[in-house]
């Protein structure tokens, strides 16, 4: 337990420290969301209709791209070697890093989402719904992304490759996230079912992703 706490604490600290990725992730999210209207046009009705989707895609990209250095940094500075040589289970390393990353990067983005939602002219209900679903679903994105980060730990060109590996896996999360949000806003659509599925994704990936990630790191060692 102390081991896991140590890993999480270190990850959070490295993230929010100068040079860490937490701030950059937040600004990236802001920039991506702000850039969309320049393409789509300033029509507020249209924006409020696709707003939840924009926010979800923004969170998706920000979480995936920020994961780039999650394990490759450990590999490059040798701490992955030392951790493995220490004999502690790699699963805990993956779990701790993922949780820490979500706390440092994912959570601030979720908190910032409603502010950006205002700019996309979302209704108060939609704002609440999108924040709630992001809160429930973004851990799944981080966990899935962590598997990608573990797979690419040994490679130079991390960022985009992670996204490519992981985007297909994250699409279901995205779909249910947007579905649940719309369910809360438009009456006939269901909210509870997709929301529960979203929570299930997060919980399931919290269990499975560390296992898969540990395997990937092990294999990438060589």
């Amino acid at each position, binding site marked *: 337990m102390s081991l896991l706490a140590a890993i999480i604490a270190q990850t959070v600290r490295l993230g929010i420290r100068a*040079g860490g990725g937490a701030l*950059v992730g937040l600004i990236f999210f*802001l*920039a991506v969301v*702000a850039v969309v209207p*320049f393409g789509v046009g*300033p*029509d507020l009705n249209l924006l409020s209709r696709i707003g939840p989707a924009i926010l979800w895609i923004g969170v998706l990209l920000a979480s995936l791209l920020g994961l780039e250095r999650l394990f490759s940094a450990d590999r490059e500075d040798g701490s992955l070697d030392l951790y493995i040589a220490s004999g502690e289970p790699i699963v805990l390393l993956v779990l701790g890093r993922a949780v820490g990353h979500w706390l440092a990067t994912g959570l601030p983005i979720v908190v910032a989402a409603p502010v950006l939602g205002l700019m996309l002219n979302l209704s108060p209900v939609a704002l609440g719904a999108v924040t709630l679903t992001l809160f429930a679903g973004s851990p799944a994105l981080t966990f899935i992304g962590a598997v990608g980060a573990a797979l690419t730990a040994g490679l130079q060109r991390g960022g985009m490759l992670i996204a490519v590996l992981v985007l297909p896996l994250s699409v279901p999360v995205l779909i249910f996230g947007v579905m649940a949000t719309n369910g809360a806003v438009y009456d006939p659509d269901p909210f509870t079912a997709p929301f529960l599925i979203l929570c299930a994704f997060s919980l399931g990936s919290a269990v499975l992703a560390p296992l898969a990630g540990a395997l990937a790191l092990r294999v990438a060692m060589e």
Partner: protein
Amino acid sequence: MRQKPARPKKNAMSVVNQLANPTRFLSLSARILPWLAAASAAVLAIGLWLALFVAPPDYQQGDSVRIMFVHVPAAWLAMFCYTLMALSSIGSLVWRHPLADVSAKAAAPIGAAFTFLALFTGSVWGKPMWGTWWVWDARLTSVLVLFIMYLGLIALWRAFDDPGRAGRVAAVLTLVGFVNIPIIKFSVDWWNTLHQPASVMRLGGPTVHPSMLWPLLIMAVGFTLLFLTLHLAAMRTEIFRRRVRAAQMRAAVQPAASVGRAVAAHG
């Protein structure tokens, strides 16, 4: 003991050179700072009193026009601050002026804060006036882009651990951004005039009445003084931060500069 690199460019500008001495800057700014702080407090106090209690409500906008007295100065300073950073960047790239780096770095968070204020007060004003917190209007989006540029600069600064390198790299970005701002403004203008829904009200409105103009101008002066105070104080902090860093590095790595003399191999 301090050794000045013999740079011909620098010798040509002895006035700047004098100010380039951080120690001189520190003593000078220490003397100015209290006066500047007092002045900004006084002017802001007068301005606030005028803005909140003296200025009449607008015949169209009601009392909400009082938001203007913070909104407009904040917006002006947001732009002024970027201009200052661009000038400092020229200073640090062309003359390698050590204070120019410091000035640009110290200004960025302050500029970001004022830009945020312009955005926030604008939104809060927009809700009662336009019925929405945000429209993708040309002027608003330009300010939003400016805000993101401030944040990007701050992130870039934080990403380097060597302040000298960070300063020069950020200076390049600041200048690139400065060249781009007119382009962004102009393209956003065009973009918006093509697509703008008719419902959105034009900014500016009727020409400002003197009873509002005076409080506005006084608030603007107050904000500018406040900005200068904060900037000066932040520059001092930044100089101290660099001295701390340099001292720590010296302590950790190597006590003093090496010297050496070439000698012929014996025999």
